[in-house]
């Protein structure tokens, strides 16, 4: 019997792996993925690289050495020219604009009568940068009038951040919850993608056996449950193969792209729209604490995370793919699957969104706990909580055990129900079943 299961797994695996569209997807996806990243990085870089040149006509005694070239703006001084000539030459040289600072007695007066001439409406990033310079000078000037020296001023200006600590005295850090949840979320997201893509494979493979009418020939040799199991395992092995190829080739390609194009990928983390970017950018902004973050990330229980990823992945995938198999058995063609697929995708999407919103803000809040126990969402949500570890400060052990226990119970329940629907469905032709009928099949 075991050897028959082996035969089925082998056939399903080879049928999938040899499939032309599967091969194309396997090869193309990493190219597309890396292509996208490179493109985004490239565009971001191009955007950054556009340094605007602003000419300065300064007829006053102030602001003589306050305009430093920055990432966005570089300056050309045209102090010997008249205003008209400066305008003309700025225009004809196609510089971005002309900053005109007329004569005056005080910083206040000079600032008030200063002008920025541009061709079109100036970009806010340029005006803000120029305004900052004025603002700074004005502030110093006003403070000096109040008798504050510039040294005093700079001490006043030191930024402040509140010190953070957990109750047991460990220094806690900004954004570390988000970073942890983001790492767990990565694992959870991988599970969701895997379920949706390869669960769909299982379903299509069942439908193919039905439409080609080979199903009755096969199940006169093997038990329907064996066939279903073989299908699920075979397709997931094909999936793991594809995933591995993607990860390996995408990292290789990315590495090559970084070498060839010299793209700075860290630039992406500031532009990323992902919720985790909040944490990442804070991380970038606090170099002094870098080491502590590195330590904290190093301290994430990777062993636990990988083992539990494996547990949640296997159980979660088996639950969902047996539902997919049952759906495939219940219908005659793929277009009929829609009404049944939506209810499957729903808990997965919910898990991802709830995970990102609630686990990020509070990994141990009631919503996060609830969804990490509920078996249809726990594979994703629990993984988001787990980087905090199990036990003190992390997920309580009982919650972890309970969620695994619930998952196993659900797995046994769902697989036996799905097997019943599968067994009946594969021999039904030409009917588009309703939910009511599916429930009837469970009693056959």
């Amino acid at each position, binding site marked *: 019997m075991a050897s028959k299961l082996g*035969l*089925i797994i082998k056939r399903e695996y080879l049928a999938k792996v040899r499939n032309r569209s599967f091969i194309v997807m396997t090869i193309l996806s990493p190219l597309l993925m890396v292509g996208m990243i490179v493109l985004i990085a490239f565009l971001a870089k191009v955007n950054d690289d556009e340094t605007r040149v602003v000419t300065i006509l300064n007829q006053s005694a102030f602001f003589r050495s306050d305009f430093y070239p920055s990432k966005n703006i570089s300056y050309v001084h045209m102090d010997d020219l008249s205003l008209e000539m400066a305008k003309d030459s700025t225009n004809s040289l196609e510089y971005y604009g002309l900053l005109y600072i007329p004569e005056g007695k005080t910083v206040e007066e000079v600032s008030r009568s200063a002008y920025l001439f541009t061709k079109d409406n100036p970009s806010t990033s340029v005006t803000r940068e120029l305004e900052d310079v004025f603002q700074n000078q004005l502030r110093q000037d006003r403070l000096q009038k109040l008798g504050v020296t510039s040294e005093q001023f700079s001490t006043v200006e030191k930024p402040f951040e509140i010190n953070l600590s957990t109750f047991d005295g460990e220094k806690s850090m900004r954004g570390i919850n988000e970073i942890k949840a983001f790492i767990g979320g990565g694992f959870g997201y991988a599970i969701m993608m895997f379920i949706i893509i390869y669960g769909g494979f299982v379903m299509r493979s069942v439908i*193919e056996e039905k439409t080609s009418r080979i199903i009755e*020939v096969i199940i*006169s040799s093997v038990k329907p449950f064996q066939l279903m199991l073989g299908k699920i395992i075979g397709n997931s092995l094909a999936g793991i193969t594809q995933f591995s190829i993607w990860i390996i080739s995408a990292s290789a390609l990315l590495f090559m792209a970084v070498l060839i194009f010299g793209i700075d990928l860290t630039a992406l983390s500031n532009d990323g729209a992902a919720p985790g970017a909040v944490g990442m950018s804070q991380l970038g902004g606090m170099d002094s604490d870098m080491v502590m973050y590195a330590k904290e990330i190093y301290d994430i229980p990777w062993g636990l995370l990988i083992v539990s990823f494996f547990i949640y992945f296997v159980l979660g995938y088996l639950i969902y793919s047996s539902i997919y198999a049952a759906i495939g058995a219940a219908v005659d063609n793929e277009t009929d699957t829609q009404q049944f697929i939506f209810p499957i995708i729903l808990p997965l999407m919910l898990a991802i969104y709830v995970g990102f919103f609630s686990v990020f803000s509070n990994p141990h809040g009631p919503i996060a706990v609830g969804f990490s126990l509920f078996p249809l969402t726990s594979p994703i949500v629990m993984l988001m909580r787990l980087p905090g570890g199990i036990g003190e400060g992390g997920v309580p052990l009982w919650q972890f055990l309970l969620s695994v226990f619930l998952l196993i119970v659900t797995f046994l329940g769902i697989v036996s129900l799905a097997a019943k629907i599968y067994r009946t469905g594969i021999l039904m*032709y030409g009917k588009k079943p309703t939910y009511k009928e599916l429930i009837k099949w469970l009693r056959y």
Partner: protein
Amino acid sequence: MDYILVAKNVTKTYGDHTALSNISLQIPKNCIYGLLGPNGAGKTSFIRIINQIAHQDSGEILLNGEPLAPKHIASIGYLPEERGLYKSMKVGEQALYLAQLKGLSKNEAKEKLKYWFDRLNIGDWWDKKIQELSKGMAQKIQFIVTVLHEPKLLIFDEPFSGFDPINANIIKDEILQLKENGTSIIFSTHRMESVEELCEYIALIHKSEKILDGKLSDIKKAYKNNIFNVGVQVQKDARDFLKSLEDKFNILSSEIDPIENQLNFRVQLTSSHTGDILTELSKVANINRFEETIPSANDIFIQTVNNKDNGK
């Protein structure tokens, strides 16, 4: 007698639909057994139970004297009515896979496949995909994978559907050959023509019940009603002769060919005793035809089903 398969009071229901009610059958070894009945009568349900695809609610099935068990899968070959093959899989690979699922080793399967491919002249199809073959060609492959593991019991559900007449004949000859070699065969169909040629035994299933079974020749004997087709050349006036016959016998229909003075008629006798009418005829006529009409399987089928329906 030795039976390959015995079914005792087999009942199967799906929800509130009864597929088989209390079916008992005995299928002798080494014969072709026709399982007849209109569509939806329950034939396929019964066959699926034999193949352990479905399980009966009550009753017992013995294969070769033993209660049906998973190990028997290897000794049964089944060609379902709803049949097909993996379209994008190569012929040889697919046949090997299906044979291995029936418990053959890879080498055994290869050897046997070579024999059958040569026998049906399809040796060069090995590397073709099923989707490149015509329907009839695919049916040949399907037939081969059904019989490849040399099962003791072969079950064919509408085996000739999908075949053109030439290939249907090839398959029919193969089925007869398999029977010669000692295989027992269940042949399920609602097409009666093929039944007369092939089956020694039949069972009629109608609306989930068995309404008739036994040896086909016995059934036919039981169903004949002493009707004879007679043709005579009369020496005197044929019309008068017919009149005299009608007084003595139950003439069902008649026709006279005045030029040849030929009289043809159908007569139903009160018993299978034919002496009286033959004596009467031979007095004045040359008998050139005298034959009993034996009911066809089709007639029996229709008659039994009608009787059953009217009886209810």
